[in-house]
């Protein structure tokens, strides 16, 4: 299910909608079957730069258009829709299958597992297409894995931009680090009541 922008973007700031890239933990983003290790990080950028292909882009290995991208977020997010800008000459991906909150997926897992949702993509060189998700399934996403099994006939698959629209919650799925104090010392925890008013808030 794709929808296009039927208005010009000067009226409002579309890019604020696509700001989930700020919540991506870029250091932990990995991709399988990428030709240049680490090039996957270049596809996560601001909405305005989605067509800016002067920098690096993600490309799969020669002769094998399959790609697997693992994206962890810094906090749980709700994803409303996904946008993918591919390459020209048939190097755009034709299908997308996503998996939620599973790490360590490799190609054999991706091919055999049932995805949370999958889409047939079209060539989206201008970056105006977005693919809506079944929102109820994408409510608390800590990490997402995108599997692009094929391209439009090209030898490789190129991806220039991946964008997520949605909102970020402040929740995290990580292990919580809690410090227990055996003998708490109130002077270590200055409350606002003492310093000047307001609700007391112990950190």
């Amino acid at each position, binding site marked *: 299910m794709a929808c296009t922008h039927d208005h010009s973007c000067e009226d409002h700031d579309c890019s604020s909608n696509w700001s989930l890239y700020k919540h991506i933990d870029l250091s932990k983003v990995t991709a*399988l079957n990428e030709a240049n*290790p680490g090039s996957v990080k270049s596809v996560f950028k601001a909405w305005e730069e989605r067509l800016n292909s002067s920098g690096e882009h993600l490309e799969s*290995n020669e002769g*094998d258009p*399959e790609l697997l991208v693992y994206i962890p977020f810094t906090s749980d997010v709700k994803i409303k829709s996904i946008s993918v800008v591919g390459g020209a000459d048939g190097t755009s991906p034709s299908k997308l299958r996503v998996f939620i909150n599973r*790490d*360590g997926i*490799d*190609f*054999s897992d991706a091919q055999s597992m049932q995805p949370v949702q999958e889409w047939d993509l079209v060539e989206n060189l201008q970056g105006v297409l977005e693919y809506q998700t079944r929102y109820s399934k994408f409510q608390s996403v800590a990490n997402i894995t995108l599997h692009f099994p094929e391209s439009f006939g090209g030898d490789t698959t190129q991806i220039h931009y991946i964008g997520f629209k949605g909102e970020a919650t402040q929740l995290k799925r990580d292990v919580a680090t809690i410090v227990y104090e055996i003998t708490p010392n109130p002077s270590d925890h200055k409350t606002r009541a003492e310093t000047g008013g307001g609700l007391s808030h112990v950190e």
Partner: protein
Amino acid sequence: MVLEATMICIDNSEWMRNGDYAPSRFQAQADAVNLICGAKTQSNPENTVGVLTMAGKGVRVLVTPTSDLGKILACMHGLEIGGEMNLAAGIQVAQLALKHRQNKKQQQRIIVFAGSPVMHDKKALEMIGKKLKKNSVALDIVNFGEDDGGKTEKLEALLAAVNNNDTSHIVHVPAGPNALSDVLISTPIFTGDGEGGSGFAASAAAAAAGGVSGFEFGVDPNLDPELALALRVSMEEERARQEAAAKQAAEEASKEEKGGEEQDATMTERASEGASEADNKKIEIADDDDTSLQQALAMSMDEPTSSQDLQDTEMSDAAAEDPELALALQLSVQDSTKDSSSQADVSKLLADQSFVSSILASLPGVDPNDPSVKEVLASMQNQSEPQQKQDEDKAPKKEEEK
């Protein structure tokens, strides 16, 4: 310090019986595996290593990736050699084992020891290589052992298919005096992609070098200088002794049959073994051994003149503290040599009353003060009859007195 899960594929096929890598190909391989496991677990405590065998009845995983070095070393025991190596299946099973590693954050690596000929064709190996690269598994190949025409080419093709940014390596180890492990220590397989070598690798290299800068005899001179000195001195002593023995053997060989030489060799060995114990005692023992060696040789050549000296020397050596024991030994030795000389000694001994009485005292149930005993002694002393009769008398008398 890369966090890595490694699977080591061991070749335990029939080709590993060959001895062109000391002591045997299989043993050299096992040593290398032990070294690699140690290096990996030391470079990062969270690293895991697993082992599987490729030949035998089939590919068999001995231990799944674990950071417990003892488990890995234990599973290397009792491995049997046989069958043919199945490289493709081995690598695929290794990949599967890595896929199910517990810590998904670890990088995946496979180390293959390819000692026997490779039966698969290049295409198949390249497919496997591509699959490994796609799943970002690194591959290290140790090419040793058999070297038929196509093997090197096939392995190079496999490496080219797998290699992603120089994370995979291949090492060719030809047969020679250097141990497999020593050659591997300096390769990127050990040093881990140009990190500069971990401390383990560096110290292992130093131990393996065995030269002036390294640790001789596996003992660190800084830790235990006395032991290191003792070992060095004993080495030199043994060398000197062996040279002397060799010279003697060369001389005697011209006159003596092989039997003497063998005896000489065994005595040399025994002498050297006995001598490698302590500092000062060594030197004394060495001297004694030299003389006893000469006397042993002389004895074997049936020279009666030197035999007595030999016996005396032996006596002084072995029974310095116990004169009775010494004399008894002398007696027993002399029984086996020529009659004339020995008998003379026996009679001399018997004539020595104090000696005889002390011997009799040590016999159970004999009282030297017994008049009958004294009678016998007196009669023995006075007699200068043929020694055989004396012996006969002595023997039955001893029996009587018991």
